């Protein structure tokens, strides 16, 4: 293989494909990091909410609802689901001594149920909605499907939108205030309880949105929630708990590491590499790349 071949066929596409995968990971990790950073809650059922979003898109898509409309409809439909989860499961244990562990456990239980329920309702077989934007484009000799280009674009827009809401709006300020010091925020008139359930629902809605967007690429099946979860948690830790920019940088970085590493070593070892990065960060820089949201 000539050097030019290598560059054009292997290295450059690898970077671009890694970028597309990175955007997918960031989309899944975004909701997780928000719930993690603002509520200090480990949501082990995040993957299952992602799956619910994908199944929602599948079911409503089968009822001939336009994909573009689903992008809004499914996340909105998932907001009450998130609210309900927060009220029924998170709130009762929110003030327990070890909130991290307790919320982790309770959402782990929810994940078990959700996975089984999805199988019960939709059957065990793999399904896949049609790709909304077919075809592929060639840019500098690199072929990339149009839908992946779209994913990169809409991913950037979603991240920017979320960052705007959290950092630049009054609502975001209330959320950050509640995360930083709930008592102070409450005494300043922030409806802390509502903010908490709203934030959880927002994170769940984002998971659902990721499900809608990624369903055509990664297909839909009951255990799909487990797919991204270790990677998403790694991204959240490396990026810094609750840091939106951290999640973006870490998500893109880690998938690049994975993509490029798979060129030189057996791809099976890319998972341990990602995990090793997580361990290294936990040990040497536990606050992650960007530190904690609401505390920086």
């Amino acid at each position, binding site marked *: 293989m000539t050097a030019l071949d290598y560059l054009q066929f292997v290295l450059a596409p690898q970077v671009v494909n890694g970028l597309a995968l990175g955007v997918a990971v960031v989309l899944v990790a975004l909701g997780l990091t928000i719930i993690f950073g603002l509520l200090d809650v*480990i949501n082990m059922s995040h993957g299952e909410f992602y799956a619910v979003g994908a199944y929602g898109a599948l079911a409503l898509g089968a009822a001939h609802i336009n994909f573009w409309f689903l992008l809004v409809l499914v996340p909105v439909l998932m907001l009450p689901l998130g609210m309900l989860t927060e009220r029924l499961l998170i709130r009762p244990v929110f003030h327990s001594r070890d909130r991290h*562990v307790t919320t982790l456990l*309770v959402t782990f239980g929810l994940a078990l149920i959700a996975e089984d329920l999805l199988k019960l309702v939709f059957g065990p077989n793999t399904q896949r909605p049609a790709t909304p934007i077919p075809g592929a484009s060639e840019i500098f000799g690199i072929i990339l499907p149009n839908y992946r280009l779209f994913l990169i674009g809409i991913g950037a827009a979603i991240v920017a939108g979320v960052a705007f809401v959290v950092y630049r709006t009054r609502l975001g300020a209330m959320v950050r205030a509640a995360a930083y010091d709930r008592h102070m925020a409450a005494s300043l008139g922030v409806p802390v309880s509502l903010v908490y359930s709203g934030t959880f629902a927002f994170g769940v809605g984002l998971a659902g949105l990721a499900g809608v967007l990624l369903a055509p690429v990664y297909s839909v099946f009951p255990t799909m929630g487990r797919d991204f979860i270790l990677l998403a948690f790694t991204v959240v830790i490396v990026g810094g708990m609750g840091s939106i920019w951290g999640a973006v940088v870490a998500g893109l970085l880690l998938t690049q590491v994975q993509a490029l590493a798979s060129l030189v070593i057996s791809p099976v070892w890319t998972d341990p590499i990602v995990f090793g990065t*997580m361990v290294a960060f936990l040990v040497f820089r536990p606050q992650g790349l960007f530190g904690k949201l609401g505390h920086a």
Partner: protein
Amino acid sequence: MHDRLTLSMRASHVLALLLVAGALGAAAIGAALGDTFYLRLATEALIFAGLALSVDLLLGYSGALSLGQALYFGIGAYTSALVLMKVPSFWLAMAAAGGASLLAALIGGLIANRVRGVYFALITFGMAQVCAKVVYNTRELGASDGMIGIPVIDIGLGPFSVSAGSPAGFFLVVLGVIMLLYAASAYLLDTPFGRVLTAIKANEKRVPFLGYSVWRARMVCYLAAGLVAGLSGALYPMLRGFVSPELMFFMTSGNAVISVILGGVGTLVGALYGSIFLVVMKSVVGSWTEHHLIVIGLLFMAAVVFLPRGVIGFIRPGIERLMAPRRATEAPASSDAPLPLKAEEAKP
């Protein structure tokens, strides 16, 4: 030292004695009826109870949730399997499994104990995932198929010999091993070292000021938990005659955590009851519907939310009250005087 922690531990011992009595009764009935399946199912439940015990050692006493304790269980099982295929000796297999799991726990502990709380949970989860993957891909260890052909051994106990193939006999051997592990764990926690652990769980920041090393206490606890898991795992291939990478998978670790939560965190004996309950329930519900995850998930969530101390944590105070008046004459100060630590704080 007789304080409420000792009292709680003794209440646990009463429940453990009940468990042993029940197990002996079940073994007698099973043997009389010539049963095989239920005795061997109970043996398996006890083996997984050992794994749950090790999770409770970590979660209930140093407050560290391990989502990857199956790693040490699996290391014990694989080591035991490898030894048994060369030399069919119970004691050699147990010793090798103990050594291997201790060594692995030393390495794992050095990594995992750099962090705490949820990070500890994620690190232990990740370590187990990666190691399970390595085993899954190692041809010498049977890769994804696991290893079959582990012989049915005879276990020499002084003048006696018990076959691992005898349902009642091996059940009693496993019962003995698991109760020994329980007793050793309980003893460890009742020593001054155990009190340091409890103190760490109550308030980690103050412990260094009392002159104790938090890191060392957590490390010892982690090693003990790894050893308990490894020794329990070593029994598995003797019962089933094979090992497979699934023993290290998250579901095995997760089931142990579920057992501990259902049974009662920080009670030790709760882990044993919880595990037996879970194995039996999975077997019963699993035959009845393939959607057993819904049933288990609901029970588990209900326990976390409504019964945070588990079933044993719920009934143990009653036993403590029954025991307390008799003990009041021995140490009247212990129940009323201000304590260094309240028993409530020892629980999550």
